[in-house]
Structures are given as C-alpha cells and as structure tokens.
C-alpha cells in the first residue's frame, strides 16, 4: 500500500533557528498518526510544510508516491490535504453554508450563486459528520466544537484524503471529545489518513495507531502505539542532552519579595494562584502554551488587573492596576512579544533604554541628552549589546541584541521583581547563554526573578524552584534539580508523580 504522505529528511530554518532538522515521517491510508512533541519541537512547522504554507529548505516530500517540490496551499488543497486548526479558520460573519461554499466551490468571478445547491450540499456534509447545525446559521453563533465540525465537514466535502488535526480537543468537553473520536474513526474507516496532534497522552493511546515524537526539530522515533507506554513517550519528548552549561546559583535566597495569594482574573482565565518568590531567587514557570503563565505575568504587571486575590511586595499588599503602577512598585516585565511589546523598533537604542526609567533619568520631565547618552552607553557596555551606536534604531539590531535592549530598559528602573517571558525565544545560541548569565547576575544582585519559558532545559538549568501551570491554575511547585520528565508529567496532568508539591 502506497503511503499517502512521506517526508524524507525534511529541514527548514528561519534565520538562525533550525525548526526542522531532517524529519522523516510517513502517513498511511486509514491510519491515525499522532504527532507529539514539546512546544517548539517543530510540530507546527511540519504541518505548515505539509499544507504548503512553508517550503522546506531540504528533503523530499511525497504525496501518493509522487515527489512535490513546490507545494503551495492551493496545490495541497487540490491534492486532498486539509488542516483543521485549533482555532477554526472560518469567516465569523458568514453563514455555515457560505463558509463551506468558499472552501468547495470554484466559480467564475461573476457566476450566479446557486443557493439551493449550496444549501443541499451543506446539509449533506453536516449530516455526514453528525453535526446538528443549520446551514443558514452564521458562524459566530456557533460554539467552538460546532465550528470544528464545520471545518471537518469542509475537509470531507473537499474529499480530503489527508486530514491534519491540530489539538482538536483542546477546547472540547468530554462528550464533545467522544463525538469527535467517533468522526475520526469514521474518516479512518474510509481510508483517510489522519495526522493528529495532541498534548494529551491518554488521547493518543485511545485514538492513534502510530505515534511520531518530535524533539528539537528532529524525529525521536515512530512507534506503534501498542508497543510503547506513557513513561517512554515523555522520556522521548524531553530526553535531550543539556547543550550548554547554565550559570550556577550562588548563596541562599533572602526575604520573601513577592507573595501572591489566590490571584484571579476572570477575563484571562487565571484562577486562584498562590506562590512566593524570594529576593535572589529565580522561580521558573513551566507549562504548555496556553497554561496561563503569560496571563499571570500580565496580571502582576497591571495590564489585565486581577479581580480577586492579593499581591504583596516585601510584605506590603500593593494594588497594581496599570503598568505604571507596577513600575512604581518595582515590578518589571520583559514581555514575550519582543518586537511588538518589548522594544520600540523605530526608536533608537538610547531612547528605548531610558523609556521606562524616565523618572530616574529625567526628573521634571525634560529630556537630558547627556544623561541619556551616558545611560545608553552604560547599558550597551554592561549587557554587551552589539549595535552600530546608541543612536541606531533598535530595528537594525539582531533578535538577541533587541532582547538585551528590552532587558536593559527594565534594569534601568532598578526593579525588585523582574518577570521574564520567554527571554531567549528566537535568540541565537551565543546570545542565549549570555542572557542566562545576565539573569543569574540580576538574581544575585537581589532581584526576585520569575522566568517563564517553554524551553524545558532552560527552566531546569536556571530555576531555583519550578512552578508548573496548567489551565490557568498553578498545578505544582517542584524543587531545583527535578527531572525533565517529572516537570513534563505535572504539566501534562499525569497523576502520581513523585516530587509533586502543591503550594
């Protein structure tokens, strides 16, 4: 039997970041093939290669035994490749029928719309996937699982033979999941191959025939599901060598700097989070994407203020309702989205460095060029920022150096609590270890540091303690020196893990 889809040594780089380093993958007809991996292991990139959104740099891609060099989204669609994303990609203001028609019809520009045919077709497809949805309802009236069903109906209608599902059950209830499983099994019985991406291990064992584990952009192996257990899968996902040395912690942490008690924010889905960070301590925050870590940071920094619970700094309860109040309380936040939030790309290095600490540098509210230049030169020297000059716009710097500018902006405020959100994402290896050394130095200087990262080795290497979040809650706090598998197991919600200590 010819495999539906074959990847041979597929590689893809984005600048200096190697997202895929020669991945082998194969999908057979009538198979559910699970794709498993940590955040950033390369799953999304792999999907985008399969749907033609990314062109691989190297390797061979075969569909039905035929080699395709220049796969485009349109060609992928014609070849019967469909992808159902976690967030359904439908037009919210159009009806279900119109959305399906947009996927399935290829009319001439001024062709007459045949509404009766459209409606009939839509009803057939919806019935086929067992959806009780009226073709005339607009998409924004539908629930998330209903929208997913519309997506699946679209894939069925396009006679897709390769269906990719990206975490389809992430927002579904138990019963909706069961129904989705039923549909997946029905598709499978028709000989359709399904690539199924999920973080939930139990789902993989319930549904998949085979599983491929991705790690650091390479395949860590493909297995029949019946030949492998959960423990082995977790080990495969995280089992990499620590590639570089992390700076060692020095001394013992001081007084409790930040104490968070039953912090809630309904709008961002954070529920009853309580923990402490001491001066000089680095608290790592692990968890899957969407676990609520960035949301927690945004609460602490006043961007989405809390609606219940308390934040105390140095034993004093503080109110943080805006970033400027957070700055006044000595809280600094280096955000995840560096280019949009962390720096102002069109402004100079000097202007960026003094932006948050203007009260310190420019008392009275008037700019002082000499003080600004001094502060900027200090920052450039202290953090070894590579730039043509302090007047160069930040957009002319590399990612790692932009990140250092973002860091130096907050160091200038002399914070008591430094929250770092994915500080080394998209940063090359050299700058990464420099940033790690800097973070440890800030902690030694007496700052309390919260380090949010999806890079598990970074969390393990840097943290004095590791907090694990999931679903907007703090699931557990693990001590320094915990094994990667333990952290992963807590994050994935596996029970009976040793070392689990609910704070």
């Amino acid at each position, binding site marked *: 039997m010819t495999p539906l889809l074959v990847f041979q040594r597929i590689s893809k780089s984005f600048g200096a970041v190697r997202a895929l380093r020669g991945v082998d993958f194969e999908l057979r007809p009538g198979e559910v093939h699970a794709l498993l991996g940590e955040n950033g292991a390369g799953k999304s990139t792999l999907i985008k290669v399969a749907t033609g959104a990314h062109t691989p740099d190297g390797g061979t891609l075969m569909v039905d035994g035929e080699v395709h060099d220049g796969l485009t989204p349109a060609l992928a669609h014609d070849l019967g490749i469909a992808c159902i994303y976690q967030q359904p990609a439908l037009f919210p203001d159009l009806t279900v029928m119109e959305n399906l028609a947009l996927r399935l019809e290829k009319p001439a520009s001024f062709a007459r719309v045949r509404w009766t045919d459209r409606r009939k077709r839509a009803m057939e497809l919806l019935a086929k996937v067992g959806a009780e949805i009226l073709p005339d309802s607009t998409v924004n009236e539908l629930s998330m699982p209903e929208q997913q069903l519309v997506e699946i109906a679209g894939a069925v209608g396009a006679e897709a033979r390769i269906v990719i599902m990206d975490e389809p059950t992430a927002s579904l209830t138990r019963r909706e999941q069961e129904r989705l499983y039923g549909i997946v099994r029905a598709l499978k019985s028709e000989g359709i191959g399904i690539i199924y991406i999920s973080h939930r291990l139990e789902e993989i064992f319930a549904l998949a025939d085979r599983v491929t584990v991705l790690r650091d952009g390479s395949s860590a192996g493909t297995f029949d599901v019946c030949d492998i257990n959960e423990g082995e899968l977790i080990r495969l996902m995280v089992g990499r060598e620590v590639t570089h040395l992390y700076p060692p912690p020095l001394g013992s942490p001081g007084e409790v700097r930040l104490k968070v008690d039953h912090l809630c924010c309904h709008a961002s889905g954070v529920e009853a989070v309580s923990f402490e960070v001491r001066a000089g301590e680095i608290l790592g925050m692990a968890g899957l994407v969407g676990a609520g870590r960035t949301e927690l940071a945004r609460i602490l920094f006043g961007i989405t203020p809390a609606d219940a619970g308390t934040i105390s700094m140095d034993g004093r309860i503080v109110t943080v309702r805006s970033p*400027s109040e957070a700055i006044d309380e000595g809280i600094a936040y280096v955000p995840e989205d560096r280019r949009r939030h962390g720096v102002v790309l069109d402004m100079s290095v000097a*202007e960026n460095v003094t932006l*948050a600490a203007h009260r310190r540098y420019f008392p009275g509210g008037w*700019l002082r060029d000499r003080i600004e230049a001094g502060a900027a030169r200090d920052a450039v020297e202290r953090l070894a920022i590579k730039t*043509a000059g302090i007047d160069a716009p930040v957009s002319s710097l590399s990612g790692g150096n932009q990140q250092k500018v973002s860091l130096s902006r907050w160091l200038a405020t002399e914070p008591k609590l430094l929250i770092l959100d994915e500080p080394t994402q998209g940063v090359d290896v050299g700058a990464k270890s420099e940033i790690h050394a800097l973070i440890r130095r800030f902690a030694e200087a007496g700052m309390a540091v919260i380090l949010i990262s999806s890079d598990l080795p970074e969390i393990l290497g840097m943290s004095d303690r590791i907090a694990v979040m999931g679903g907007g809650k703090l699931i557990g706090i693990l001590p320094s020196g915990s094994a990667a598998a333990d952290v992963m197991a807590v994050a994935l919600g596996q029970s009976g893990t040793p070392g689990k200590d609910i704070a």
Partner: protein
Amino acid sequence: MKFSAGSAWRRILFRHEMLLLVVLIVEWLLFLHFGTMTNRRGVTVGFGTLDRQFDILRHSCEIGLLALALTPIILTAGIDLSVASLLGLCAIVFGQLTHDVGLPLSLAIPLTLLAGGLGGAVNAGLIAGLRLPPLIVTLGTYSLFRGLAEAMTGGAVTYTQFPSGFLALGQGRWLGVPAQAWIFVGVAVGMWMLVHRSVAGRFIRVIGFAPEGAQYAGVRVGKCLTFVYVLAGLVSAAAALVYTARLGQAKADAAVGYELYAITAVVLGGTSIFGGKGSVTGTLLGVAVIAVLKNGLATLPVVIRMNSAEELSGLLTGGLLLFALVIGMLPKLLSAVCIRR
C-alpha cells in the same frame, strides 16, 4: 567612519526639511520677481512689499496655530478634524461673552480658552476614554462644534465692534511685527519643547510608533492622548481670538475648511500620518510654504487677470503635498528595488 543607520534616518529627515526650505525660498523668489510691480504713481505694489509680507504672516498665524495643535496629535497616529469648527465655536463664545454677557476682556479671554479646552476634552473623552477611532470622533465633533456655533447665533448674528485694544491683537504691531506673530512664535516654541525636549513628547512618539508597546513600557496612553487633544482645543481657542481680532468680527462660519490646510501643512512638513515620525520645524515650514503659495499667487498679474487665485492655490497645494509624499517614499522604494535585485 562607520555607517550608522541612525544617522541615515536623521539625514533623511534633515533632507526633507531642507527640501521644504528650498521650495519655500524658490517660490518666494519667484513671487518676488513676477509678483512685484510699480504702479502709475511709482509706488511698489504686490508681493515685494512689507505690508504684503506681514499679511502673509498674519494669515499663516491662524492656520499655523491649528497645524501646531495637530502636530502632536498626528504624531500619536491620531487626527483632529474638529479644530477649525472649534475655532468657529470659540469665536462665537467670545463674541457672546463680550457682547451679550458684557464681560471684560480679562474674563472673556480666559473663558474662551476654557471653552476650547472643554471642546478638546470632549474629543479626548471619546478617544482616550472610550478608545474610539479619532477620525470618526472628530468627524462627529467637526459637525457638532460648527452646528453649535450656528445654533448659538441662529446662523445670522455677527459680532463686531470689539474694543480697539483687542483688535490690535489681530491688526496692530508689537515691536514692529504683527502682534499675533508673537503668540504664534510662543506657541511654536512651546510645541517644539513639548515634542522634542520633553518626556511627554517622547511618549507621544512611542504611542504613534507602537501603541501596545507604549502600554508595556509603562506609558499612560490614556493620559497622553487626553493631553494632546485638550491642548489642541486650547490652541484652537487661541487661534479663534487671533482670527476674530484680525477680521474684527466673530461669525459662526469662521475658518471653515482651515483644518484641511492645517493637516496639509503638517503632512507636507514630513510628519507621518501613521504616527511617530515628524517635527515641529517641518510643520512650520509646511505652513510657510502653503501661506506664501496662497498669497503669492494672488499677486501674479496673470492670475489677477484670470481671477483664479483660489483655484490655482488649491491645485498647487494639492500637487505639492502629493509631491512631498512621493519624495518621502523614495528611500523606501529605492531600497525595495535594491533588495529585489
């Protein structure tokens, strides 16, 4: 010397303002040459007279004040279409306060400025408070303020006969130059300090470049936006006083259409409508180029014969603006072409 992208960016800005200065000098010399003549009695008339130059200055003060008010707003990537309507409203408020209420100037002037500030606060409340788009909000207040002015006068009342001390503000000279020029210079210096030398001015640019990034840097975006729109209201009120004093009358249709001249001057001056980039110096040059063009055309014999100064100045102002935009795009276009190769 190492090539620095920062200095390149500055060079481009510098070049834009230099370009404007060259345009200004060239048009001035052209009008001086073709628009100046001697009449039958041997008296020099037209462009090359001091009176005419002062006239240009007087005219540019009102549009100039509005353009200065608009500069920080456009730097935040906002817009205020209501400035000229607010000017009209403030003129009427001033007329009613002095005539109907009978207040002395020492009370009527501050109260008129307050009215301008309140008008700006209406814009600010909707834009900074409710985060509504500035274009729509000020399109609304553009009609609202003008409508209010017309309602207050029944569309017919014209306030005249202001005290001569007040008229001197618009028609007299202080220290040899038109009196309102001093107000204009004062506001210009203040605006320059605000935009280029103050922390608030830096925040204004940050908001224009990256509104979300500003919030993450601890900038109080709402407060900054409130400030620039209220300030624009105050400056519009000052422009209303100057306008009323120059014409010696306050009418509901005062300064109709001035907002478009003011926006043109700001954009011509190199301020990006997308926010962040721009300068007060550029705005001043933009105002000067437009004012000299409008006035100078009216002195050309051929234009006088055809009686078409208004139309021609519209045509040339529009052409100049588009030309400046294309020139501003050139570096980007050139680099795009280079990358493609």
